């Protein structure tokens, strides 16, 4: 394997022409879905149904069906919430932060990653809503004038969460839609079906690829990226405040915000790689989502994995260094107590296995990559489990110590959230261009004027 890192690899491989790029990306939309598609859809749909049934039963009989009980009042519900919000972060990172850093390689994966952000935040949003027990009263979370003349508590991290997650969802959706407008116009102009044309026209808003519009469009993209960047950092910071602002040993740490953000990017990238490996294969997008892109993402996974590992170590150090006995107890208990199994799954999946990515060969090998990223997904889920459950299960009084065991309903709802996520992903691959057509065209070879052509000579 001989890769020259001294030169930037082209963002689009295989010297595709503009028309070929468009053809490749639009193909899944023009062809009828095949059998495999329906098989995949039925699997994810079944998972979704399992979740829906468990959820309906939980609504009917109440949250007693779940494993949560004193003192472990937060368990799968919050674990899943944090997990899914974290998954979402990769999308915004790729679409906004890498945009500001002018990383051309982001174009091939940005659309997909943004879609995953939106779907992941949808999955995440379910959990805080249902963990209230009576989700039909969740409207109380919003500050609206009401007959109780009460307002929400603006100093509570749980309320900040409401604002952070809903803003994050809205902004991601808008950002995504803005990116889609030119593609809708392109699809509108190439389709021959009347129904499709009506739909695409509606969503393209009448986009004309006008340069007078492109100018504002690019500006808005820049502004939105500028906002999305601090936003994405703020969201997981605020999620970490849910824990860090409390005074519970194991939660009450200042390292939480950066640690959560790094973990979010880590798990999000792992999820993006997991899905993209399949997508590029199934839809023949190997030239647009190239091995170089995957390798770059694996590097990010390696880097953020090390940050997460550093945070694990630092938590222990501070527990010892602070001299707070309760804190020391919590951490020793985490690693060697009744939940040691969860702790060591977390450490091995998040810190040990990603070290394989130091080797170039492994970074560029699809099977190795698949194994590692799936382990990272598992590990990051367990990280949230360890943080939430182990800090709670040893209360201050030994008489209120307990061991949390999830019930079938907990698992059902978790499976359901994966079902929802993958159902949306699968539907997305067949109904919208999974790669931004206009952006990829813009970074194709020869797509931009050479320095001697155009302006200077004319």
């Amino acid at each position, binding site marked *: 394997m001989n890769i020259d890192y001294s030169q930037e690899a082209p963002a689009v491989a295989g010297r595709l022409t503009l028309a070929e790029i468009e053809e490749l990306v639009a193909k899944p939309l023009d062809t009828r879905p095949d059998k495999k598609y329906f098989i995949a859809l039925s699997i994810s749909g079944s998972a979704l149904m399992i979740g829906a049934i468990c959820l309906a039963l939980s609504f009917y009989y109440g949250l007693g069906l779940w494993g949560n009980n004193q003192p472990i009042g937060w368990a799968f519900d919050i674990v899943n919430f944090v997990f899914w919000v974290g998954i979402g972060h990769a999308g915004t990172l790729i679409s906004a932060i890498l945009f500001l850093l002018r990383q051309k390689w982001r174009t091939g994966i940005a659309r997909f990653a943004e879609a995953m952000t939106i779907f992941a935040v949808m999955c995440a949003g379910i959990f805080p809503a249902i963990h209230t027990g009576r989700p039909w009263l969740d409207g109380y979370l919003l500050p609206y004038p009401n007959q109780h003349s009460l307002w929400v508590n603006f100093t509570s991290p749980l309320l900040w969460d409401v604002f952070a997650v809903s803003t994050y969802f809205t902004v991601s959706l808008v950002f995504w839609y803005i990116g889609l407008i030119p593609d809708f116009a392109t699809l509108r102009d190439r389709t021959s079906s009347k129904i499709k044309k009506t739909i695409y026209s509606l969503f393209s808003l009448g986009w004309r690829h006008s340069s007078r519009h492109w100018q504002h469009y690019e500006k808005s993209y820049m502004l939105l990226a500028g*906002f999305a960047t601090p936003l994405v950092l703020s969201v997981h910071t605020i999620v970490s405040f849910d824990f860090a602002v409390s005074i519970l040993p194991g939660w009450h740490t200042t390292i939480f915000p950066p640690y959560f953000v790094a973990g979010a990017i880590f798990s999000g990238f792992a999820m993006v790689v997991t899905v993209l490996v399949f997508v590029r294969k199934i839809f023949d997008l190997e030239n647009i989502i190239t091995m170089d892109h995957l390798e770059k993402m694996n590097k990010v996974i390696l880097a953020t994995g090390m940050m997460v590992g550093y945070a694990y170590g630092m938590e222990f150090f501070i527990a010892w260094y602070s001299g707070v006995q309760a804190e020391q107890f919590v951490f020793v208990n985490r690693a060697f107590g009744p939940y040691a199994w969860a702790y060591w799954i977390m450490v091995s999946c998040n810190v040990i296995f990603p070290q394989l990515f130091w080797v170039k060969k492994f970074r560029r090998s699809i099977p190795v990559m698949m194994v590692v990223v799936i382990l990272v997904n598992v590990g990051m889920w367990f990280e949230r489990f360890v943080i939430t459950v182990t800090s709670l299960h040893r209360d201050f009084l030994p008489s209120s110590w307990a061991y949390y065991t999830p019930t079938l309903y907990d698992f059902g709802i978790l499976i359901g959230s994966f079902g929802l996520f993958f159902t949306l992903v699968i539907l997305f691959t067949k109904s919208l261009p999974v790669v931004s057509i206009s952006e990829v065209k813009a970074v194709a070879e020869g797509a931009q004027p050479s320095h001697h052509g155009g302006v200077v000579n004319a």
Partner: protein
Amino acid sequence: MHNKNLFGVSALFDSPDKIISVAKKTTDAGYKKFDINTPYPVHGMEKAMKLKPSKLGFITLVFGLTGSFIALLFMYWTMSVDYPMIISGKPFFALPAFIPVTFEVTVLLATLATVIGMITFFFKFPENHHPLHDTNYMKQVSKDKFGLVIESADKNFELEKVKEFLQSLNPIAIEEIYYQEKANNSLLEPRFLTLLFAIALVTSGTTYFVLNKLLYMTPFDWMSTQLKLNPQKPSDLFSDGYGMRSPVKGTVAQGFMPYLAKGNPNPNSNDLLENPYLITEENIKLGKSKYLTFCSPCHGNFGDGDSRLRGQFPNPPSLHSKRAQDFKDGMIYHVIVNGQNSMPSYAPYLNHEERWSVVNYIRVLQRAKNASESDIQFAKKENVKNASN
């Protein structure tokens, strides 16, 4: 003159280098109302077309700042003015705790305003009936060609001249573009109106059903039908059949110490209580307000016994009588709690502290009405001091 229906003339080119030079030449030729259509943004086009920098950023700035301001103001009003509440020992206006929400609202408002502003104000979208739509030109620039349109609305537009000019640029194709026939106003179509009406009906119906019916059905009502015992409801659990328990004998609620001389019209002076409250300004103010509310209707504002009840109730004696002046504090307290002859008890309306403050206030009235020379001297001095302040 050209055809009135003519929108403009377009030309297609096939490389980004070419379109940049075309844009440059078109501006140089003095055309103002022209447009370049490219499948993706081509770098350097703004310069070639001599476009002014986008002003979109101003929308973002204004709405972003508005967002921060509204959020802070709203939190200040709810948390410090409308319903002040101390939470976790934070001040009513806890700025650090308000920052997250301020930030989120800023970002939300700024992005939404930027996008909506751009689409409606800068692009004038949605516009699916633009003459360029559904032309071969549009199809090409949507895919991989680069196009130029010179609009007939331009001052210098002359069909032949423009065509000549375009030809000189070596295009792949030239196309004349015409306005399409105007689509009739679909907003007033009966079918659309019916649809709107149906949506309104369904929305309001569902809302009514959910809020007034559904929320009272099982399982949504389970919170109100619980196994716990409700006060005032019978229960088989206890032998007396009551759901509510009465407190253990001898229980004393806080602030409700029983009064031992209760019911005794001529209490022994040993049974009377000592006044536990000092005469402070605050205490007297409380006493004054309670006296004016509860005692003055019969006893008069200054205790002279000049009732406002116009004979509907026997006038009480003056509180400045020798007898009343000689009362121990505890005796006045006794009258308040117990009543005296035709005067009813005021115990239910006044708590411990309020009763004693009324006693203190009556002492103030008594001293004021029967002031000694030294009192007057003192009051004069106080007045001078207050006036010079």
